[in-house]
């Protein structure tokens, strides 16, 4: 029965495993409170212009959305609707399966479709369409002529070029049926194409195009143009193209006029005539009626903006605005002033105010203009953020505070709310104000492994970095205790604060305060330094420091040992760290904070501190049954805790005392080693 239950539990565990895990790691979630590059916007947000505070660091796609809204041209549902994307089959696999079916013999196990070119890079040489065409043609020819082994051998030769070398099928044998003869000519041309003999391939495709009897005559002009594009891309060097060849290709492809030719013509034109392309695409992107081309336009727009050149502002105001908004130079500021003076438009007001500092002569005038923008404008929050920033920079705290208090009563995206709360935290009037502004709701999750954001599973409030720094370095112990017991904070944050304050109180020898917090943490009330150390030795999760965002350790029991060695803290205050008093502290409170900080700075890492207390206690109290256990726990802390340079010394001392005084104890048996792992 137990065995069945065990198997069931293991199977249940396997079913619950995530389907994708990064192979590197460990990677821990980091909470993101303000989106600065890749906002998590729904289609509804994009259509309604709920963009929050727009930052110049946003990806250009989002800056485009912002520009459309700021220009009074909201995005439409039709534009955002994604076109259905076709399946992306494995072309080589299809060809190999077809080949095996026709011949009845095993095919090669794989075909390498990418080919190495100069500078150690690879490109997709043989495309899915090439393999699909080969498979379809083989099926047809085999139905008409039998196994067509020569045809297959010739096609194998063609595909040998996909990865390397130059392999050309033999000319058609005399007496071949005309269609197979035409096929062979096409195979030879394709082999030249894949082996990068582009001039020869083009000549042959042109010949095929002129052959009215060839079944390949209609596709041949398209392929002849493709040879120009390949040659232009592969022979001119990195990120450069032979524009003459690209122009010729674009011209020929436009004349062909089919769907795939048009797409390839567009590809060539983007590279041959980037400025003209940017002009056209920018214009189309501003026209909601061009929704059918929206996604391709946006993709191509981003491609061109990645290659933006200084003179390209003439391509239109959309690229000009994005390039200027993203640019932090003095020239960009001057350009924004000029454009705003010319247009008095909302996009340029946003660009300008984002670049001004409070000392700029235009700051006041522009802030006033921004304050006239109504609340329902998609730029309202961005402008409000900069108006407050300018007030803060000029030291006008009361108007800034009043502005923020009004703003924070309105609905807004969580990212913007966090940004405004961070501004407001700087203006906290006192402890209560500070406390209520500290918790923030994260808007996304990321890890060191990812570039984007994920939505968090829950929306519990957490502490961001600014309030964490204030708790760790800006408030005296008395205020930390008030925070830890203030019911206006969510219970999970109070609990984190209580553990931090309790440990800090112990380090500061304020056992009275620690005793008052003990019931909250369900910890024994400390009677003296040893009993406090005893409790900490049993609870590796206790720490005098708060961690911002998702504190992974706080999700574990205090008594649980962390497998990633986040046990027993390193230093309550590192040697170079200073106190950062919260602005609302009185002179007395500041002095108290400074004194506490100095005392914490003098404390070593937890394992060293705890081991010294345990050793002193055990040496002085040989009859206390806790003494050998305390020494064992101290050695354990020097193994699993955050260590310092004295770690080996105290570990050995605890180990030796334990084995000398209590050699037969269970604790000595559980302690076979000491640890020198600084």
């Amino acid at each position, binding site marked *: 029965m137990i065995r069945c239950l065990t198997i069931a539990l293991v199977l249940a565990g396997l079913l619950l495993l995530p389907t994708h895990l990064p192979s590197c790691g460990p990677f821990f979630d980091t909470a993101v409170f303000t989106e600065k590059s890749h906002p998590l916007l729904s289609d509804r947000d994009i259509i309604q212009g709920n963009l929050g505070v727009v930052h110049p660091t946003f990806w250009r796609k989002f800056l485009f959305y912002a520009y459309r809204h700021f220009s009074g041209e909201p995005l439409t549902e039709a534009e955002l609707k994604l076109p259905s994307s076709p399946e992306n089959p494995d072309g080589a696999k299809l060809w190999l399966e077809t080949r095996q079916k026709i011949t009845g013999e095993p095919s090669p196990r794989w075909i390498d479709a990418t080919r190495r070119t100069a500078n*150690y890079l690879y490109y997709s040489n043989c495309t899915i369409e090439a393999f699909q065409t080969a498979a379809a043609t083989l099926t047809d020819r085999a139905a008409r002529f039998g196994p067509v082994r020569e045809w297959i051998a010739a096609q194998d030769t063609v595909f040998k070029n996909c990865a390397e070398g130059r392999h050309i099928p033999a000319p058609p044998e005399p007496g071949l049926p005309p269609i197979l003869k035409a096929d062979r000519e096409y195979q030879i041309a394709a082999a030249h194409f894949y082996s990068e003999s582009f001039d020869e391939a083009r000549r042959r495709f042109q010949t095929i195009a002129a052959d009215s009897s060839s079944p390949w005559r209609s596709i041949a002009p398209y392929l002849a143009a493709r040879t120009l594009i390949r040659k232009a891309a592969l022979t001119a060097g990195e*990120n450069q193209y032979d524009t003459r060849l690209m122009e010729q290709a674009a011209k020929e492809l436009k004349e062909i006029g089919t769907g795939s030719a048009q797409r390839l013509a567009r590809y060539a034109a983007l590279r041959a005539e980037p400025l003209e392309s940017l002009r056209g695409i920018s214009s189309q992107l501003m026209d909601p009626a061009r929704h059918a081309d929206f996604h391709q336009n946006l993709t191509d727009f981003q491609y061109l903006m990645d290659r933006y050149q200084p003179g390209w502002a003439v391509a239109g105001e959309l690229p000009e605005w994005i390039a200027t908004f993203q640019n932090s130079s003095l020239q960009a500021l001057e350009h924004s002033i000029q454009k705003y003076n010319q247009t008095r438009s909302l996009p340029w007001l946003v660009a300008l105010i984002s670049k001004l500092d409070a000392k700029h002569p235009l700051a006041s005038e522009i802030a006033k203009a921004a304050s006239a923008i109504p609340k329902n404008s998609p730029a309202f929050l961005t402008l409000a953020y900069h108006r407050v920033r300018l007030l803060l920079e000029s030291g006008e705290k009361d108007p800034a505070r009043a502005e923020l208090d009004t703003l924070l009563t309105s609905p807004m995206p969580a990212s913007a709310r966090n940004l405004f709360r961070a501004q407001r935290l700087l203006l906290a009037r006192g402890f209560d104000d500070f406390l209520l502004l500290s918790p923030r709701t994260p808007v996304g999750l990321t890890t060191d492994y990812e570039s984007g954001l994920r939505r968090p599973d829950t929306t519990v409030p957490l502490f961001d970095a600014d309030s964490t720094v204030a708790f760790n370095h800006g408030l005296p112990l008395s205020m930390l205790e008030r925070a830890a017991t203030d019911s206006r904070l969510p219970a999970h944050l109070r609990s984190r604060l209580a553990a931090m304050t309790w440990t800090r109180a112990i380090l500061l020898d304020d056992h009275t305060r620690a005793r008052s917090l003990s019931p909250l943490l369900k910890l024994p009330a400390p009677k003296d330094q040893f009993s406090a150390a005893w409790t900490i030795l049993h609870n590796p999760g206790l720490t005098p420091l708060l961690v911002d965002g998702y504190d992974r350790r706080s999700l574990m029991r205090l008594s649980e040992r962390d497998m990633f060695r986040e046990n027993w803290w390193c230093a309550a205050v590192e040697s170079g760290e200073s106190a950062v008093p919260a602005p609302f502290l009185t002179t007395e409170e500041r002095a108290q904070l400074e004194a506490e900080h100095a005392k914490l700075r003098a404390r070593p890492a937890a394992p060293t501190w705890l081991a010294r207390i345990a050793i002193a206690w055990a040496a002085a109290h040989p009859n206390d049954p806790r003494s050998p256990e305390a020494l064992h726990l101290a050695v354990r802390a020097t193994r699993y805790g*955050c260590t310092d340079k004295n770690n*080996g010394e105290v570990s050995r001392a605890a180990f030796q005392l334990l084995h000398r005084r209590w050699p037969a104890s269970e604790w000595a048996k559980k302690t076979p080693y000491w640890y*020198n*792992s*600084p």
Partner: protein
Amino acid sequence: MLAAKRPLILISALVMVVAALSMPRLIPTTQSRVFLWAWERPEDLRFLDPARFGVAFLAATLHLHDGELITSPRRHPLRLGPGTEIIPVVRIETDITPLTAAQLDAVAHHFLRFTDQPNVIAAQIDFDATVSQRPFYRSLVQRLHTQRKLSITALASWCLDDPWIKDLPVIEAVPMLFRMGPESRSIRQRLAGGSDFSLEICRSSYGLSTDESPALVPAGRRLYLFHPQPWTPRALP
């Protein structure tokens, strides 16, 4: 600004120490003591002094998923000066689906293909295999080591407390001493305290990143350096 420069200064000091000492044992023929990892981004490294620097570049990433293999060959150019020693790197990425014998064949085939380059002194596998994937990895190395001089990247733990790679037929395992997570401090301090990796194959090279404080590099080790942006002359140690 100062914080950004500090690791580089430290690395510079370490490299000078390394440069003054003997060559690593396991690849005795290499002239370069420092290999720059050139990852998937455009890199122009023609400014390198080939007497000092070699380049270990990402040649391809092989994605193993649900019984299939998808190859992602290098898509960004790498420019090198004449005489630069190179080590093509093939990264293997997986999900949790079991790995198959067919995938092993395919990985071996593509590894040989993507590491078949001129001026190659060795080929490197970058595969953070999970415990269940270790037999696959072992078979792969057994399959390849007669055809390439194999270097592998290694999690620091593989060189310390979890030495499952100890008998792999490779010329070196490069312990990756960056992006180590919460154990970073402990491992760094352990090395700074004079401890060394227990495995012989882990004692010829160190893998470091320019944006993290480096571990203290013992004498005679080859450095592999990662840089989070494209390399420039200023980023060099």
